[in-house]
């Protein structure tokens, strides 16, 4: 798919009408992710109960690819265990880097697999992976992710 097709068919829907954009009340984990070179700046919020991601939301601004990618990510990780979400992030980043091409493995990503073509656009790779990298970091190192629910008390 060419870039214009990608925008028209997948990215715009998530960019213009994101399902998970906003601020969560009392998230368990919150982390800001920034791409300094282009100004993508998101804050990802997760509610994690008994090791399972119960809800995911993001705020901030950025290009359409970064916004759509994080919105699709939220769709995919809600209801998954932390371990599964980390594994899925690895699959997504492997796909974007062009390292994972196995169709079956990519099916796991569901709609987010549509961003596979970004692997041919090196300038946009950082945009696509921002949300996923942020999630991976906050799950692997929860001590670095601010815990807003306690901060607010």
């Amino acid at each position, binding site marked *: 798919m*060419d*870039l*214009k097709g990608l*925008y*028209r068919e997948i990215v*715009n*829907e998530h*960019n*213009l009408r994101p399902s998970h954009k906003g601020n969560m009340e009392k998230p368990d984990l919150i982390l800001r992710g920034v791409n300094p*070179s*282009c*100004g993508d*700046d998101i804050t990802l919020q997760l509610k994690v109960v008994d090791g399972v991601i119960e809800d995911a939301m993001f705020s901030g*601004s*950025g*290009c*359409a*690819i970064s916004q759509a990618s994080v919105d699709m990510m939220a769709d995919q990780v809600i209801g998954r265990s932390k371990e599964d979400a980390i594994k899925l992030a690895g699959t997504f980043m492997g796909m974007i880097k062009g390292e994972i091409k196995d169709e079956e493995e990519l099916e796991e990503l569901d709609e987010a697999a549509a961003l596979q073509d970004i692997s041919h*656009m090196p*300038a*946009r790779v950082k*945009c696509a992976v921002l949300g996923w990298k942020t999630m991976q970091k906050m799950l692997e190192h929860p001590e670095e992710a601010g815990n807003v629910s306690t901060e607010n008390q």
Partner: protein
Amino acid sequence: MARPEDYRKDFPILSKGDYIYFDNAATSQRPDCVVDAIKDFYENSNANPLRGLYDWSVEATERYENARKTVADFIGASSTEEIIFTRNTTESMNLVAYSYGLENVNEGDEVVISVMEHHSNILPWQMVTKQKKARLVYLEPDEEGVITPEEYKSKITDRTKIVSIGHVSNVFGITNPVREIAAYAHEKGATVIMDGAQAAPHIPVNVRELGADFYAFSGHKLMAPMGIGVLYGRKDLLENMKPFLTGGEMIEYVTREDATYAELPHKFEAGTVNAAGAVGLEAAIKYLQNVGFDFIEEQEKKLTKRMMEGMKKLPYIKIYGSSDPDKHSGIVTFTMDGVHPHDISSVLNDDHVCVRAGHHCAQPLMQFIGAGSTARASVYFYNTEEEVDRFLEHLAGVRSVMGY
């Protein structure tokens, strides 16, 4: 009257595919003669300049020093001793900051720059002022991108030791009143540094008429190779400065404990120099002089006017800086409602249009104008009106691709 088509044939890359290259403020394209000059240097006179006692080295030295003469004449320096070859504007600025700034700025002093500066004229002064416990003061432009006399006269004071200002803004394209600022700064006893990266390729520069104590520019923005830059410095200032980098060929005499330094300009050119780059820069300057600044300025104004008029018909586009196209130096920086600049650039790239998107290494200015990032189309004399029209057509199509 010349036409851009007369020159386009000199640039092989411009006939490659159907690309519209509108990122000339980032780097320009190279004509055949520049590439040929580099090739000729390596094929016919390559040896380490300034060292060897044999023909090839002597020839390499001569070509390198001839390039210096061409640069000195190009910007109106008093002598070749005032021309230091560096890698680029950034290195030139760092040289001044380390060798002059750290020595001459003290606690409580002030360094004045503008909020429109490129990072290469901000970070070195952040370093100097932090290290010396001095204050960094920012000049701010008005709505039209102009730094007014009221503004610089209120901020340049007796405490000001250094004023370092961009000659032409790489975001607004506006030419700053550097001559007036320099005159006022000198009255206050300050030293004046000008960042000419965005000026030297587009307007005539005479460092003495401008009143620059230091003037920096890069070769690659005026069709020379990447990796060759220039620092002009007033001789009496350079003479009193310590070297920036130390090592080979910048010395006079070295013992186990100590060294004396070479004469200007070699004191500031440690290590093997970029002689082929300098030779390429000389070829580029001669090419540019042949084209002439009259034609360059006229063509850029014509294209900028057409571009801005076309963009004004698109109500969702906001153009930054002056409302007068003549004051844009070929640069049009803009945003589009609801579409991130990176998406604009990616969609235009699909149509083979090259524009820059991001913060243009001028983040304080982005914060000042309240935009996280912007898109920038920048032309040079080899761009055509037909290219501008095609660009405008593609630009008008971006929003529909983005779902509007």
